[in-house]
């Protein structure tokens, strides 16, 4: 659906994007994460035909965003960092105007308006002036204008920036709801929501993509050690602690929670199975009171920081 190849963008001497390439299949949600200034917004703006690339190609549904921009614009919905709202219009009036701009046929208008209002929870405020809406509602109107013409591709730039936690969850749910029928590409630097909404994640730093895959795959790439959490029914005794430490294959052990009911164990890749079964055997024999043994993925934060660190070290 979206094919980006060797995309480069230069502002004078500054390279905003260096040769990035990625693809998004139809119906997928892909998240762009990266530090501020990494090039997320630039990528979104190029994909949405707002800005031209310096070189490289971007194809959306087979149409080139520079040479066939008109076709592309019909099938995309774009929510920029600042939702493009006219303060002097009502929600309904604004959405109607947007649907006119996006060539929504007259006979479909009412249905699509109702759909957008419903999906974004805007029914109660549809006659209010946009100027009088709270930030959360403004963001929702921004999403509504992006989806109103049933575009195949949705491009959201920081859709949950400066929303309160509850609104953030609502928007996140909304985006998940949309993903089935639409292909969604969104950018953010709020990692937890990324892991929850997106199937694929692309990490971008200083204009380069330093990792693009599903989150578990990325995590696996980075792991040179397996990590397991073990929780007991009572604070860990020293003997138990030492015993586990001594098992061959265990690289390190540290207490997990401050109340030390649990430990985090790092084991060498491949040894983990053996170590865990040994722990279970001994644990049952000696009655350690094991409550939980669970493998821990790197959190997305750790993946993120690790990849960025490696990238900067390479330079």
């Amino acid at each position, binding site marked *: 659906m979206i094919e980006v190849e060797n995309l480069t963008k230069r502002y004078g001497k500054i390279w905003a994007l260096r040769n990035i390439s990625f693809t998004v299949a139809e119906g997928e949600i892909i998240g762009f994460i990266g530090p501020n200034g990494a090039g997320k917004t630039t990528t979104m*703006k190029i994909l*949405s*035909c*707002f*800005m*031209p690339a310096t070189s490289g190609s971007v194809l959306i549904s087979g149409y080139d965003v520079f040479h066939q*921009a*008109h*076709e592309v*614009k*019909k099938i*995309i919905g*774009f929510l*920029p960092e*600042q*939702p*493009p*709202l*006219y*303060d*002097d*219009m009502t929600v309904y*009036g604004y959405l109607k*105007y*947007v649907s*006119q*701009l*996006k*060539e929504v046929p007259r006979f479909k208008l009412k249905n699509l308006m109702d759909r957008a209002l419903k999906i974004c929870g805007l029914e109660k405020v549809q006659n209010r002036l946009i100027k009088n809406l709270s930030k959360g509602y403004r963001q929702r109107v921004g999403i509504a*204008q992006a989806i109103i013409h049933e575009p195949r591709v949705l491009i959201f730039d920081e859709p949950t920036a400066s929303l309160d936690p509850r609104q953030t969850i609502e928007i996140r749910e909304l985006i998940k709801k949309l993903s089935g029928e639409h292909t969604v590409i969104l950018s953010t630097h709020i990692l937890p929501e990324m892991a929850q909404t997106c199937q694929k994640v692309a990490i971008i730093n200083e204009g380069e993509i330093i990792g693009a895959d599903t989150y578990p795959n990325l995590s696996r790439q980075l792991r040179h050690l397996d990590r397991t959490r073990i929780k007991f029914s009572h604070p860990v005794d020293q003997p138990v602690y030492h015993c586990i430490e001594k098992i061959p294959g265990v690289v390190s052990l540290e207490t997990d929670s401050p109340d030390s009911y649990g430990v985090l164990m790092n084991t060498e890749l491949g040894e983990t199975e053996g170590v865990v079964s040994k722990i279970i055997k001994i644990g049952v024999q000696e009655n350690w009171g094991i409550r939980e043994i669970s493998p821990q993925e790197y959190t997305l934060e750790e993946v993120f920081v690790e990849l960025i660190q490696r990238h900067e070290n390479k330079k």
Partner: protein
Amino acid sequence: MTKIIYIIQRELKSYFVSPSAYIFCMVFLILTAIFFRGNIASFIEVRNQPLPWPELSVLQSLNKMILQPFFGQISLLYLLLPILTMRLLAEEKKLHTMELLLTSPIAVSHIVLGKYLAAAILLGVTLIMTIPGPILILFYGNPDLGLIITGYLGLFFVGLSFLALGLFASSLTENQIIAAMLGFGLVVLFWIIGGAPHVVGFGLGMVLAYLSILEHFYVFTKGFVELKDIVFFISFISFFLFLTHQVLESNRWR
């Protein structure tokens, strides 16, 4: 094509939802009325006096003492026009709604034309509201009706030209005040450019002087419609609309 109409509708709605259209009309009409009243007053003063010699009968002609100055005075009020156009494009940039316009399947030329025509409609409406003045005179005297018609035609063209200047100015900045100031500057520039020969010398000066809006307007106030003037106005308007279009398109090249 219909998209132009959608844009016109939105811009007109926007004009009339805020005080700007009303204040513009009000100021324009009040000043027009004051000028008109003044013209009548000075006309009446002269009217009733005996003429020391016959050539001065010109002073007692309705046409020349009331209508022609009237048209000239309205064209002066056109200095207010950049206030109408200042928000048209500058605001889109400020509010970031330009992102919406440029990522929607609508041609840049349609955007420019739509906004321009909305301002033109507002100008037309305002001009029409000044008509009661000349109509009053029609009842009380015998002015040249043709003169009134060509005068308004000329006024409309001059207004359209200044609107094109104002829209162009608005495309250059996201700050409405700067857009207004640039607009004022351009309007005054084309107003006084008739004096170019004095400043720049004869050759170049005469070329520049031809661009004077004043020159092409005078003929209309005398009751004549000349093709060359209409061509001038249409070219002028087209040129500045084209420039505006290029400025917006230039987003796509950078």
